[in-house]
């Protein structure tokens, strides 16, 4: 499967597969729940891109910080947020990971240093720079990992953040999920230079492009980058080439791409790729795969049930959390 093999073993590969299946099936259930109007707002799904969040998270420790976009269910789950609190959040319930105030685009869990969930394209990058700056100043041995899309690269905030990160030699891992489209706008209409990793290199960052459909490659690249960062090598940039299998959000008629293209990419999908390799190499039995799928479905069912049953935040608390409740002065 990969030249860049780590000490991957059967158990770890099964774990990676399970993580990706968790995300894929979670997203599929979200579609149903959206159609049932249990989930509302904008809903952006991660189908096809699972290998990135799952692979990268393997390189991170509990001390590290993670920031993502509005397409962040996968990152939240891979980071370790329970399905229960993520699902409850999307149901708008008080037990949701953001108290029902954030929804699909704003999942948070500060206990896991999971800092969202940002719906302004490129808007989390400067924040990531700041978190890394704080960790550096406080001499925390932490990496800040920031995920964003190819579209974000055109934003001024991207430019400013990369410059600052390198200038200050901060411990950041930038992960660009290049899925070739920003909503309906293809990469070649977004970027005068479509080689995103080269653009990052122009700031002096260590930068590379990898197959974002191959979870082992992603894990390997992220681990190398993180260990360099931990050794003081400054920010790293990884462009992960990937594709989203579904529309941008639930409101996308996908006029801008043809089905052939989608089908071609689906064949290279991260779940298919890993499953096939495991099967070809006799590293997984059908019943093992079924067991994984069953466990995942149970987990999702339980999350849906608990979200359904959860309480909503009392309306009296509408103004809560705008400011910290303290007295001072």
């Amino acid at each position, binding site marked *: 499967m990969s030249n860049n093999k780590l000490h991957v073993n059967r158990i770890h590969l099964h774990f990676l597969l399970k993580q990706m299946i968790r995300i894929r099936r979670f997203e599929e259930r979200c579609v149903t729940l959206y159609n049932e109007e249990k989930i509302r707002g904008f809903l952006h799904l991660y189908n096809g891109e699972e290998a990135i969040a799952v692979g990268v998270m393997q390189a991170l420790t509990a001390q590290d910080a993670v920031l993502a976009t509005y397409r962040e269910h996968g990152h939240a789950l891979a980071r370790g947020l329970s399905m229960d609190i993520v699902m409850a959040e999307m149901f708008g319930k008080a037990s949701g990971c953001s108290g029902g105030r954030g929804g699909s685009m704003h999942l948070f869990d500060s206990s896991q240093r999971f800092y969202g969930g940002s719906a302004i394209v490129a808007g989390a990058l400067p924040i990531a720079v700041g978190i890394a700056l704080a960790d550096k100043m406080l001499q925390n041995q932490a990496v800040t990992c920031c995920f964003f899309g190819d579209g974000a690269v055109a934003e*001024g905030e991207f430019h400013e953040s990369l410059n600052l990160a390198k200038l200050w030699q901060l411990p950041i891992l930038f992960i660009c999920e290049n899925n070739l489209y920003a909503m309906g706008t293809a990469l070649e209409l977004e970027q005068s230079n479509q080689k995103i990793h080269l653009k990052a290199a122009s700031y002096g960052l260590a930068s590379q492009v990898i197959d974002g459909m191959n979870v082992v490659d992603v894990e390997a690249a992220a681990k190398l980058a993180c260990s360099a960062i931990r050794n003081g090598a400054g920010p790293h940039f990884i462009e992960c080439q990937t594709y989203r299998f579904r529309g941008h959000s639930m409101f996308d008629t996908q006029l*801008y791409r043809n089905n052939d293209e989608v089908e071609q990419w689906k064949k290279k999908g991260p779940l298919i790729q890993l499953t096939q390799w495991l099967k070809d190499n006799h590293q997984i039995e059908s019943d093992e795969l079924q067991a994984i799928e069953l466990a995942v479905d149970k987990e999702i069912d339980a999350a849906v049930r608990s979200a359904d049953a959860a309480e909503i935040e009392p309306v009296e608390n509408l103004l809560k959390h705008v400011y910290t409740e303290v007295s001072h002065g």
Partner: protein
Amino acid sequence: MDKITFREASRAGIAEALKDDSRVFLIGEDVGRYGGCYAVSKGLLDSFGAQRIIDAPLAEAGFVGAGIGAAIGGMRPIVEIMTVNFSLLALDQIINNAATLRHMSGGQISVPVVIRMSCGAGKQLAAQHSHSFEGLYAHIPGLKVLYPGTIGDARYMLKMALDDPDPVIIFEHVMLYNMEAELPEKQTIAPMEKAVIRRTGHDLSIITWGGCLYKAMDAAEQLKTLGIDAEVVDLRCLRPLDRVTILDSVRRTHKALIVDESWKSGGMSAEVSATIAELGLWYLDAPINRVCSAEVPIPYAYHLEQASLPQVAQIIAVAKQMMEPFNASIRDPL
């Protein structure tokens, strides 16, 4: 006559402008191939081609500034910022360039750009996607700010904006796009800088605009059944503000209730109130009231979101209160 939606009305206005004037083009994120974030521009790429319907990269300062520059250069750009939330990224260009260049150059430079943006809450999009910043824009000399709240205005205000030699901002509330009504005749549409009384009444003036207009109209309808005859003033244009129409209405009704989807503190509602307190104080038989959004970043959960926004029931409740003889009395400061 057939009904059309607000979305279709906006689209027809854009199409007409593109047809009538070769200097007009539409630029914005996903206005072309995707068909527009709220489908307003759907189909226009097929009709007008990629030279005139330009998909811009995610670079709000860049393409809004480019629109401003193109206007200076002799074109008549319609710039679409997907939503007002992202316009913060272009605000430097709009305020420091579009609004000032004519003045700073001693009148030499015209910036006939039109910038459209969707805005408002109600779709459970949470804190970063639900802003109402029309008050902020209306604060800026050099800009004109329109906020259509009817199908007729959605259809015809764009043309007036394009005919204006100065930069014009147009807001379109996301909850209005599916609203349907018959399209009125063009001649019936008031000039863009005039407020319009959408419903006459003599008991109180409900002053509103854009996304809250239909709520005010609903409330007025229900108030009627309670024997309260509300007038509804649709500002339509927030800068310049048609103070005459506001004062004229309040002079007749003696009561002013302002309905505004932005946060109450320092929103557009404050300026309407201040106008009356300055120029029409003696008309008043009751304190001016404002029904606005709660002072909270708009939450995702449906019940919280709805609780944070102005609602018909609230308008009715406040209006009723205002009609009670001594309720004009002092309440506790917030």
